[in-house]
C-alpha cells in the first residue's frame, strides 16, 4: 500500500534534511507554545506564577485564558491543515482547501440560519448546523468539479471561489436585510481573543477528526491516485470520500464557531510539507499537523504583539502571510500551475 503511494518527486538525498526540518518544527512548536502562554496584556510570567504576581491572579489567568487559548491555537492549526490535506486528496488538486471551495461560506450560512431561527441555541447545536451546511457545501463542490478535467489545475479553485462568492452573497443579502451583518462579521473573522475555558472545547471534536484522518491515512493516499485506481486496489471509493467529507465539514464548523474563518492555512501548509517529504499521507499527516500548529501559534503571537496592548484579528495576519505563501506556490518554477 505505502509502496504504491510514495511520491516520486522526493530526491534520495533529502533524508538528512528531512530529519533536520522535523526537529526544527518540533523545537519551534515547543518554544512558541510556551511563549504563547506568557504573552499578553496581563502579567503572567514564570516569576509572577511563583510569587503570585501583583494581584495574585496570574495562575488563575493562566488556567482560564492562556492555556485554553494556546491549546485552541494548536488544535486549530493542526486540524485545519489536515482538513486541507484531505480535501486536496479528494479533489486531486493542490490548490483547494475549505476556504477556496465554498465550504467555509456554506458553514457561515449555517451560522446565519441558527442566528435567525434559534438565536438562543447552544453552541454545540450551532456547530452541528454549521457542520451540516459545510457537508452540503463539500457535496455541491465535488459535484461541480466532476466536470473539470484533472489537468486543469487552476480552474478548480477558481470555480470553488466563485461558488464561495455566490454563497457569501446569499448570506450577506439576508444578514443585511435582518441587520445581522456586523455580528456575523464578528463570527466570520478569525480571532482567538475570546477563547477561554469553556469556549473552545469543541475543538477537541476537530482533533478527533484529525485522528480519524491519521488512522485512514493510507486510504486517502490511494484516493489521491484517482477513482479507477482506488477501486482496482479494492477500496470502497464512495465510502472513503464520504469519510473525508465528514472530516472536512466537522473540522471547518468546529473552527468557525470557536475562532472564525482562517484563510489559506489548509492550502499552504500541506503544499510546503509536500515539497519536503512528498505525498504519502500516512507519513505527512504528523508533519502537516505540526507545521500547521506552528504557523497559527506564530501568527497569533504576532497578532498579540504588533499593536500591543491591542490585538489584531488573527485572520488578518494569516491572510497576509498566507496570501504571500500561496502566491509563491502558484508562481514558483515547476508548480505546474502555468
Amino acid at each position, binding site marked *: 500500500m505505502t509502496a504504491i503511494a510514495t511520491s516520486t518527486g522526493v530526491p534520495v538525498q533529502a533524508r538528512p534534511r528531512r530529519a533536520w526540518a522535523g526537529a526544527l518544527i518540533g523545537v519551534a512548536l515547543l518554544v512558541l507554545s510556551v511563549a504563547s502562554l506568557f504573552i499578553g496584556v496581563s502579567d503572567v510570567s514564570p516569576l509572577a506564577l511563583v510569587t503570585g504576581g501583583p494581584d495574585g491572579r496570574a495562575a488563575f489567568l493562566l488556567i482560564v485564558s492562556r492555556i485554553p487559548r494556546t491549546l485552541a491555537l494548536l488544535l486549530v492549526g493542526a486540524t485545519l491543515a489536515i482538513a486541507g490535506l484531505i480535501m486536496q486528496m479528494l479533489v486531486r488538486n493542490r490548490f483547494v482547501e475549505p476556504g477556496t471551495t465554498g465550504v467555509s461560506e456554506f458553514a457561515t450560512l449555517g451560522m446565519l440560519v441558527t442566528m435567525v431561527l434559534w438565536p438562543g441555541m447552544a453552541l454545540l447545536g450551532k456547530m452541528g448546523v454549521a457542520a451540516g451546511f459545510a457537508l452540503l457545501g463539500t457535496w455541491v463542490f465535488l459535484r461541480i468539479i466532476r466536470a473539470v478535467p484533472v489537468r486543469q489545475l487552476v480552474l478548480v479553485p477558481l470555480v470553488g471561489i466563485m461558488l464561495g462568492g455566490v454563497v457569501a*452573497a446569499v448570506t450577506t443579502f439576508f444578514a443585511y436585510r435582518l441587520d445581522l451583518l456586523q455580528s456575523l462579521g464578528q463570527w466570520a473573522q478569525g480571532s482567538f481573543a475570546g477563547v477561554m475555558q469553556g469556549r473552545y472545547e469543541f475543538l477537541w471534536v476537530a482533533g478527533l477528526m484529525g485522528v480519524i484522518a491519521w488512522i485512514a491515512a493510507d486510504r486517502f493516499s490511494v484516493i489521491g491516485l484517482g477513482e479507477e485506481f482506488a477501486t482496482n486496489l479494492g477500496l470502497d471509493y464512495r465510502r472513503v470520500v464520504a469519510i473525508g467529507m465528514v472530516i472536512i465539514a466537522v473540522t471547518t464548523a468546529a473552527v468557525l464557531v470557536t475562532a472564525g474563518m482562517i484563510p*489559506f492555512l489548509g492550502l499552504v501548509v500541506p503544499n510546503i510539507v509536500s515539497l519536503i517529504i512528498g505525498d504519502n499521507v500516512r507519513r505527512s499527516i504528523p508533519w502537516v499537523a505540526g507545521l500547521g500548529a506552528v504557523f497559527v501559534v506564530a501568527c497569533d503571537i504576532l497578532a498579540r504583539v504588533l499593536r500591543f496592548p491591542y490585538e489584531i484579528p488573527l485572520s488578518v495576519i494569516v491572510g497576509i502571510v498566507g496570501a504571500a505563501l500561496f502566491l509563491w506556490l502558484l508562481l514558483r518554477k515547476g508548480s505546474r500551475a502555468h
Partner: protein
Amino acid sequence: MLTEQAPLAVATPPRTLWSRPGVRMAALAAVVLALVALFLFTDVPGSLLFALKVRGLSVTAMLVVATAVGVSTVVFHTITQNRILTPSIMGFDAFYMLISTIVVFFFGATSFLTLDPLILWGVQVVVMVAFSVLLFTWLFGGKRRSIHLMLLVGIVLGTFFRSFTEWMQRMLDPVAFQVLSDAGFASLTRPDETLLLLTAILVALGCAAAIPLSATLDVLTLGEPAAVGLGVDHRRTVMILFGIVSVMIAASTALVGPVLFFGLIVANLAYAYAGSFRHAWTLPTAVLLGMVCLVGGQLVIERLFAFSATLSTVIEFAGGLFFLYLVLRKGAR
C-alpha cells in the same frame, strides 16, 4: 471548454423567421423601449418634466451599467474560455470597499458622505485599472502563463485586501459601519450627473474599442491553438481585451458599487437567446437583456413592492441562485 459546439459560420440557413438573430434582437429592443417608456411616463406623482429629469438620469445609469457589465462579461467569457466566471471575481469589489473603508476610517462617516464624489470616483477608477493592468503585465509580460493562473493570483490579492478591509471595519462604530455597508450595495437610483457622464464616456470608449474586435472574438471562441493557427496574435489581443474589460468594470463599480453576478445572468441568457454565437449578436443582446433586467426590475420594485427591497441585492441574490443552477446542471464548463 464551451458546453455546446459552436456552429460554424456556414451553418444551414435559418428556416423560420424567429430563428434569425436580427428578428430576435429587434423583438428584444422593442421590449426594452416599451419598458423604458413605461418607466418614464407612467405613474407620475407631480410635474412630468421634473419626473422625466430624475427618471431619465436613472435610465441612463442603467443603460451605462448594463452596457459595461454585459459587454465586459461576454468578452471575459470568451477570453477565459469559461462561462461561469465573472470579471468582478478579480477583486474589483475588494478595492472599492477598501478605498471606501479607508476614507471612512481616517476621515469619518460624515466626510465620506459629504466628500466630492468626483474625487472618490476618480481615485477608485484609477486604482482598480492600475491594479488589473499591473497584474496583467506582471503575469503576462515575461513568461507564458495561463489566464486562469492570472485570475487566481488576482483573487488571492483580493482576499489579502479584503482581510485588511474587514480588520478596519471591525474598528468602526456601528453608525459608520452602516454607512459603509450601504455603500457596499450597488445603487442605481439618483446617480451624480457628472460621474454618470464620465462613466458613460469611459464605457463608450470601451465599446468603441471592442466593437471592431468582434470578428476576432469569434475566432478566440475556438480556443487559443485554433486562434493562433488562424493568425490571431493571441497574447496581444487578450491583453487589449482585458484592458477594455477592466476599464469598463472599474468605471461602473465606482459609479454604482459592486455588481458581482448580474453579468453572469445576462451573458448566459444572451447565449441562449441570441440564436447565434457571433459576438456581433451576443454583445448587443447581452446589453439589451441587462436593460430588461434593470428597468423591469426597478419597475416591479418601485410600483409593486414600493421600495421594500433594493434592486441590486435582489439581482445579486437571483444571480447567485442562477449560477448554482447553471453549474449543477452543466458542470463547471
